């Protein structure tokens, strides 16, 4: 018996996807995504410098505060991603003056992946087309977060895991 071309591969991919999304008891399983925070650009804007940035989806986040680079795991609650955001906190040295800026993807089942699509590669132009940005796999991703006025602050996180691989289905 034979089926349509690649049908077996499709079935296998769907089975793999199912095992990744649910455990044996049918409970949803968070997707582990390895992410390495990168140092923050310290150039002042209006006297403020970035002291903290984080990439958040629902209740899971990875933080950047100029620490020694090393991978962290974002346990993506794919069934409840809620709002996904890239956030930067800018502080005025010597004061408690803090300003917070972000790019947010509103609550939806795929808000984290939509947020990924709003990043660019480190060597690409600043406003990539949406489909171009979504083609990105592993490697550094840069978000240009709007500040006051027309200025932006770039924040970089490196994806050590390709978050799209799981959803690749052979057809």
């Amino acid at each position, binding site marked *: 018996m034979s089926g349509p071309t690649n049908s077996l591969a499709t079935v296998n991919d769907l089975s793999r996807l199912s095992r990744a999304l649910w455990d044996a008891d049918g409970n949803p399983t968070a997707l582990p995504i390895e992410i390495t925070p990168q140092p923050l650009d*310290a150039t002042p804007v209006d006297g403020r*410098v970035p*002291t903290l940035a984080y990439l958040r989806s629902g209740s899971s986040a990875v933080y950047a*505060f*100029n*620490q*020694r680079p*090393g991978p962290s795991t974002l346990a993506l609650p794919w069934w409840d991603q809620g709002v996904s955001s890239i956030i930067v906190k800018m*502080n005025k040295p*010597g004061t408690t003056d803090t300003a917070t800026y972000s790019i947010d993807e509103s609550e939806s089942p795929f808000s984290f992946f939509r947020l990924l699509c709003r990043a660019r590669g480190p060597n690409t132009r600043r406003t990539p087309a949406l489909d171009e940005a979504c083609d990105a796999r592993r490697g550094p991703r840069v978000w240009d977060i709007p500040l006051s006025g027309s200025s932006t602050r770039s924040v970089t996180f490196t994806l050590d895991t390709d978050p799209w691989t799981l959803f690749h289905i052979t057809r």
Partner: protein
Amino acid sequence: MVVTVAIVAALAGCGGGQKAAAGGPKSTIAVSVTPSRTSNHGRPLQAIVRTVTLKQFVEDQYRNIAQLVVSPDDTVLSSFVVYPGIDQTITIAPPAKGAFAVYFLFTGATGTSWKQLFDSPPSTIHIDLGDNQIDTPTSTKPAAGKRAPGS
């Protein structure tokens, strides 16, 4: 970068108004930071002050301390940002007992040069910090700065 840690005796009830809390007079620790412009490659860095035992300090890993920046536990006395080239002083409550340690989360931290143990409360300690590390501390009074033998 120079860090000054000073125990400031602020006697509770001074002037006859309040009684000292059980266990003796209250004191505070003033932490003064004088960073150079080139510390941490000119980028802000996080500092943590926490109570520790010698064993904990020796076994402290950078990664675990870094987690305390966003998820502080009961051992953390203070967490603050150091800005290269900007002086600042913070005041913290002293540990109820035992030693405390100061950690600087340099981007380029190696070995154990990013953390310093004080196993008895010093009155004033100056810690010179290089671009990516704490240098040998000096003090105006006998102090007990110890570098861990391992990270």
